[in-house]
């Protein structure tokens, strides 16, 4: 799909009202589709591609067969083993999702205008005012649709809404910096501090992320470093220590540790993908251990 360079419209895959883990107060979380990375632990695999996708949740399917009657390419079939869907050839026309009574088939990703997104977010402005909340833009990756992101933030700021941007930091430096005037707080991911491992697990270049962070820090001090704690991958003492070191060096006073969320497997199933990580558990005493490591000038908290 073409990305609108003016940012008049963009691809959104979810808008979550009363979001819990993405900043203070009552917040609306806007999830933009498309990401440059493909982290193995990604808990929104449906967000990686910019294109709309037809998702299929077999557990919701009631085998009613309505989809088989409308698919122009006859990709759905029902037999004794249940509902068969051959993804190959699907153009995401959405007709099957329209007739699906149980929500087993649904299209992920809708093209929306800036006004549509902003108006939906503004529906909750009284809630923001009364709770110290606001809007968080996340993804996917917000830098994948930079103009759209900037336009949304700009419009929200004009309305006096508190804004948070959540980013992997892997994108164009200029695009990132352009967001500064309209963003109250940046939630900046620190996934892995070692170049090779970063490449291996996310597919991206760590240097870009670090350079962008330095550039961003020069222009704002409102940054929170966020570390996802993926058991056996990002939760090592060395990795967390390197996060603390960067924070110290750049005088970033806040670090959030994000506990591993093991509930992503269903979403992989919807996308017809295999979840590469199994059921992982945080090792015992992990949070305490990591909190104890924190340098004195840095406030570390576990986001539960």
């Amino acid at each position, binding site marked *: 799909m073409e990305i609108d360079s003016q940012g008049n419209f963009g691809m959104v895959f979810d808008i979550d009202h009363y979001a819990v883990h993405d900043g203070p107060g009552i917040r609306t979380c806007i999830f933009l589709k498309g990401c440059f990375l493909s982290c193995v632990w990604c808990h929104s695999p449906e967000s990686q591609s910019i294109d709309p996708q037809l998702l299929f949740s077999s557990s919701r399917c009631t085998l009613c067969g309505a989809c088989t009657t409308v698919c122009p390419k006859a990709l759905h079939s029902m037999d004794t083993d249940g509902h068969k869907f051959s993804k190959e050839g699907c153009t995401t026309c959405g007709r099957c999702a329209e007739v699906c*009574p149980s929500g087993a088939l649904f299209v992920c990703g809708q093209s929306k205008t800036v006004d549509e997104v902003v108006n939906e977010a503004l529906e909750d402005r009284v*809630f923001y005012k009364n*709770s110290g909340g606001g809007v968080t833009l996340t993804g996917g990756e917000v830098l994948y649709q930079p103009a759209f992101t900037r336009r949304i933030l700009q419009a929200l700021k004009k309305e006096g809404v508190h804004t948070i941007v959540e980013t992997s930091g892997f994108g164009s430096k200029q695009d990132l910096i352009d967001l500064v005037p309209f963003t109250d707080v940046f939630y900046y991911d620190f996934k892995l501090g070692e170049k090779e491992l970063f490449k291996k697990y996310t597919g991206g270049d760590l240097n870009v992320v670090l350079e962008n962070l330095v550039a961003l820090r020069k222009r704002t001090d409102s940054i929170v470093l966020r570390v996802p704690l993926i058991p056996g991958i990002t939760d090592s003492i060395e990795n967390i220590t390197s996060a603390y070191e960067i924070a110290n060096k750049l005088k970033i006073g806040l670090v959030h540790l994000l506990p591993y969320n093991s509930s992503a497997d269903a979403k992989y199933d919807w996308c017809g993908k295999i979840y590469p990580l199994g059921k992982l558990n945080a090792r015992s005493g992990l949070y305490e251990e990591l909190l104890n490591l924190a340098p004195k000038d840095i406030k570390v908290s576990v986001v539960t």
Partner: protein
Amino acid sequence: MRLSDVNMMEYSEGIVKSSPSTRVGELISDVRENMILLKKEFIDYGRVLNEQTAKLPLIVRKAMSERQKLSTAPVGIWDKQFFAGCFSFKDEGLTNSKDLPVFALEEEIREGQEYGFGIYSMFGHISPDFPRLLSLGTSGIRKMAEEKLADDIPQKSRDFLTAALISLEGLDIFAKRHSDWLFEKAANTNDSMRKKELLNTANALKNSPLNPAATYIEACQSAWLLHLAFQLTDNHLALGRPDQYLYPFLKDDLAAERLTLEEAQEITDCFLLKFNERAMNNQTSAQMKDIEREQEENEKRWRERKLYDIGQQRYNIRDTIDATNHWNQNVVIGGLIPEDGRDATNILSVMILESFRRLRMTNPVLTVRIHNNSPQWFLRQVAQTLRTGGGLPAIYNDETIIKAFTKFGIEEKDARDYANNGCWEALLPGKTDFYFLKLNTLKCLEWTLNNGICHIDDKQEVPDQGDPSKYTSFDEIFEKTMENIQLVAEGSAKHMLYTHPHRSSIAPVPLLSALLDGPIEKGLDMTDMGARLVVGGTIAEGISHLIDSLCAIDKVVFKEKKCTMGDLVDAIDSDFENYQNLRTLLSNSPKFGTNDQIADEMGRKVIDRYVDIIYQIDQKYDGMKFMPGVGTFSWYIAIGEGTGASADGRLSGKPVASNFSPSSGALTKGITAAINSFCHMGLDGLPLGSPLDLGMAERYVAGEEGINRLMGLLKTFVELGGNMLTISVADTETLQRAQKKPEDYKDLRVRMGGWSAYFTMLSKEQQDHHIKKSEGGIF
């Protein structure tokens, strides 16, 4: 100590971190272990009716029956309790729940039946005048009655006042029996601490309710004894605003250093525990009643349902099956001071709220009134209490509810004193005779689409409005549905006006009448329309589904023309069999609760018309005040069982959404959208109220941020003009575990329409309903 020295923020913040006293801790366990009435033995209350008494007026006999019961009902106190007078006596296996001694003659009973009343007809759902008892005592009320008797008044009034005096005597006897018994028990008690407590209670009961209460503990004991006396005489009544009427006594005791804050909290805990000394679970509930017979009677009643009684649910014994354990015991705290409109929250509001949090019981049901100037510390404590689950306290917004009362002609000063009727309907405590009839609004559309015939049993319920497949516009359907609402509402009003005055012929309430504003002054029993305000409520059921159905018809049939009216009628007649695609289209139409402009405008139109219909009826008829509300209580399953398939895609017989909550599956945009939609409904036209029941998983309320979010939610609810809100906090996994291991989850509570119920005591069907509802985290 001076209360002005207490920093309320610090106090309320500290109290939610504190633990109950040892005494209260032990009493909590004791109550929890013994609340279920397994053994059931009755005292013989004796007889009232004989050759001599038969000649007396019925109302006098009723009073004698009340007095008789209060003279014979067992007296006692639970170990460690401060307060005497009990529903049940665990050691003796006794309960205080048998019917009143018979007081009416056969022919009187037959006559009463003609109007639908019997000797055990209960006029609960009323909040008696507790302040009157505490400030005057029975002696003061007796004096009022005696003075009135000295006037030249009709015989009917003489009979009523004589009866009221007999009932009050019954209350005095009940108090004296307790007092005497406690003095004796104290004399036989060696433990000097306990002896002192027993003497304290004995002395309290010796003084009041006969005389005005003098101390906090006396006031609580008096209020409790009156409540118990009402329950024993078949009056299931609400508690009004105890943080207002008990507060002066607490304030004086604290100022005079008769009590410390800790002692006051312990007394408050013990007082509120008293309301929990009885419960039924699913089995005991079934044991105590002949379910089959009751079911049969209900089926018969349903088959014979009249227009005014159209809200009659198909299986009204659901309360028995579901063991909701509600006894109309509702406490309202917070709010405004009637005289000057200032915030009424005080330290007793804090204590009552804290008692509720720490007891983790379901009774009394707790309701909190908030408004534009509610203190921050109070909102915070409310949020902290909400997090403990059970859907309580319920939240009322004064700004909207008071405005609604004034729209229906109530003085603002009176409206500021509103409480509720024991369930959730708002009323003015101490002066309202309240009754309501239910109006199934979804059924009104069902008739419009089915020639006035009920889909469930093919009964012709209202006149045929014509061939539905020939309807040519949405407006036609809307207007016809409103005609049906008008028809039932007016039928209900006329029914109430016609039957209400006849209540007194078989079921007068002399004790309650003595404790209400109006009857003694007018010389008329409450059932003779003696109360200052007689309210006939209409409660609209199934309203969210009506709104969704209208949206679906407008969109699918008329705007998009995806099917004909004939198709729609066929689809509904056949419960969507072979119309699956049409059902999906209808289901995907705009829904109330998603902050969708189309659905919200439709909802507003429905509510405005409904309010106007009731308002016009109120203007048209004298003798009663007619007021509207919206709700289902805990009967959302039963209402659904009597309602055919609806145009929003709901299948025949399936439950409707509770109260004024969005229909199931319509919370796609979350809790804020539900509140936004709800607040667009013109709720200041509904004085009785219309609860929005929402739920969320524990993760949404976790941590300090969870409290902040809840506080923000409450403030927004007030600002946007909501009226009543309940928020249940429950995790699907917790409910599932509780279903499997009920013994570990005795204090787990869930919201049930108007009540909070112990999850493990509910029927399997209700449990499954709650589990399914909670999936997805926001419900």
